[in-house]
């Protein structure tokens, strides 16, 4: 079997808030077709770790490389390769659901994005809301739209922070199936999750952060 390329390499990562060290000397390597699930209790540092990996937060020490390039959030190459769904996704208040996805696909160079946009809208069950403005969506629908943004564009690494949040049972089943298919298709995935069924279906490796409560 051909050796799979390393997509994400995290070495010696450290983040502390004052005297409280969230994680230290954290190492992680994720290859194409691998899915790593970060688990652990609330406050274990899963979201902080993901934010450091995608460049939304600045680690105190350590390095992050994506496809051999040092992680710089401002780098167009990194933005091209890494799709993220973390809590800071914003929306244009005056663009509809479908227009957001169309814009994203076109920005990534997809010349005829209608097919993929329609397909993803169907999957996330937002077809009836395609003309709605984001401010009118429910929290669950906004979450689905955030997830859709990751699937209408090319990607080598997918980073998700608790993607199961605000999804109903049906949505969770769809997400688990979709992520599994994406992984089998060669996508590298890192996700933080509290949902055992999602972790069991998607993850090839589980990394538990923090220590168990005494």
């Amino acid at each position, binding site marked *: 079997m051909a050796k799979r390329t390393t997509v994400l390499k995290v070495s010696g990562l450290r983040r502390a808030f004052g005297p409280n060290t969230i994680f230290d000397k954290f190492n992680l390597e994720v290859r194409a077709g691998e899915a790593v699930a970060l688990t652990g209790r609330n406050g274990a540092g899963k979201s902080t770790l993901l934010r450091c990996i995608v460049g939304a937060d600045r680690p105190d020490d350590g390095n992050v490389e994506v496809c051999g390039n040092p992680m710089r959030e401002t780098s167009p190459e990194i933005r091209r390769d890494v799709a993220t769904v973390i809590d800071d996704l914003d929306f*244009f208040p005056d663009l509809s659901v479908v227009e957001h996805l169309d814009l994203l696909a076109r920005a990534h160079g997809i010349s005829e994005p209608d097919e993929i946009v329609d397909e993803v809208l169907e999957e996330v069950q937002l077809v009836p809301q395609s*003309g709605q403005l984001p401010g009118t969506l429910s929290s669950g629908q906004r979450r689905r739209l955030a997830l859709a943004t990751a699937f209408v564009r090319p990607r080598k690494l997918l980073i998700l922070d608790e993607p199961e949040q605000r999804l109903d049972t049906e949505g969770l089943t769809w997400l688990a199936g979709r992520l599994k298919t994406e992984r089998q298709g060669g996508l590298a995935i890192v996700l933080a999750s509290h949902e055992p069924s999602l972790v069991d279906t998607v993850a090839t490796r589980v990394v538990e952060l923090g220590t168990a409560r005494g």
Partner: protein
Amino acid sequence: MDAGADEPVFESAAQLPGAGRVPPEAATAPASARELKGLIRDWRRGRATKKLGEAFSDGYVVVIGALMIGAMVINVILKAQRVVAQCTAASCLSARTILPWAALAGAVAVALAASRLFGPVLASAAEGFWLLDTPVSRAKLLGARLVAAVVVAFVGGAAIGALISALTGSGLAEVLIWAAATGLSGAGAVAFAAAQQGIDRHLLTRAATYVFGVLGIAALMIVVAVAARWTSLGLGLDVGGQLGVVMIGFSGLVLIASIVLARIRLGRIRRTRLLSGGALVSGISGAFYALDIGLARDIVVERRAMEIGHVKPHRGKGLGVEAIMWREWQRLRRFPQPLFVVGGTIVVPYAADALGMSTLTTVFSALALFAATIPLLGGLRVLTRTGGLARCLPFSLAQIKLASITVPAVVEAVWTLAVTPAFVGLGDSTTHRDLTTALLMALATGAAGLLGAVRWTQAKGVDFGAPMISTQAGALPPGLMTNLFRGFDVCLLSTFPMLLGGSPFWSLAIAAIAALILLNSWDAESVRARQAEQQKLLEASRKQRDAAKTAAQQRKR
């Protein structure tokens, strides 16, 4: 799911906690709104730790300061009134006759727009939960709110009417007439909007807002035209006051009719409509408390988008950064109101030129354009405020910023061409310039307005987690006060050379430097990120050197 071992087991419904209890029967005579309000007032008074007099006595410095500043302002207005009252030129007479009308129309337009945004009748979330769901008359609970909104509009309108009338040199009787007319018109506008709110309709309020806005601008343009001697008014000196009295009667009638209608319909206003106005006020007041005007605007924009709710989707165009530019164009076509506002500012340089203030034309025009351009930069605001959306796009921040401002820049270019004749100088008593200089001045002014708006739009909220700065007013987070001047600084700095009579090339050079900083990711945050990255690399190389040194020492041993 199986019940846990520790969970209690109930064999019948009768054993459930609370079983057997019945809800209290509906009262035949529930408490009146007056009783409920009295009860809440008693509780609040019971918890007060100070009387009103004591609070004033504790804050005597603020009270005396406010009185002194108020007296100074009134003194300045009275002095200005005496000076302007002596002016008998056509421009002064036209301003004295027409500007109070412009103020009246403007006050009504603002009152209607604010009413549409906030309600005008509103309730807090607590009132909505604890009071509006009770069987107490909603009309009686909200009656005081309606009166308060109308009174505030009357006071605000009267102040504006009196101020404009006084500053244009009118006598005391006319000042009082225009204060009453503008105050009653503002109050009538709010009462009218409340009457529309009662039947959940906003079309008439919206239409009236635009009509009065256009009337205000038209009145200003007439003043400019008379001052520039393009036309003459041909009205008597006392006609303004007479029309003011007519306006008092008319707006008084509108106020009475609207307030009666609003009072009848008060009980029909939906709870969600009342609460959304309350939530908006609380959100905006929170943003203003942090002096984050950008956030306050975001809240208003989000609220408007929620009101619209649904749009007809349009297919995008172009690929890569072009897709962002096309989307900006489509957004502007969908909601073209900001374009009209920018169009309205074209009158500013012409007005300044006609009124003989050609030295200040660049400053006034840049500031007006700066304020009008902010709504055009909604895309830039969304892409820069959190970084989440920009991270999804495969471009550098500089590319994203340039793509977002391309359409607004084209609009500013058209503005530049439209205002160039004003910089050439049209009036008899103004400075006349050659076409090239005028075009360069217009370009520099347009650039100053655009870049000021870009700086304002990109402003980050105040970081309350950062170390505080010690000031005489107490500890303040860095950036709290400077946030207020963002954008104004670029406008003033860029137009400063022209204000001093220097070449517009100096202004263009300053604007070019500002553009490099603002659009090329050289803003403070990016610079800090780069510094941190370099610091990290230095640390890593230092560690490597130390490790190599230690290894060499060990080998020697």
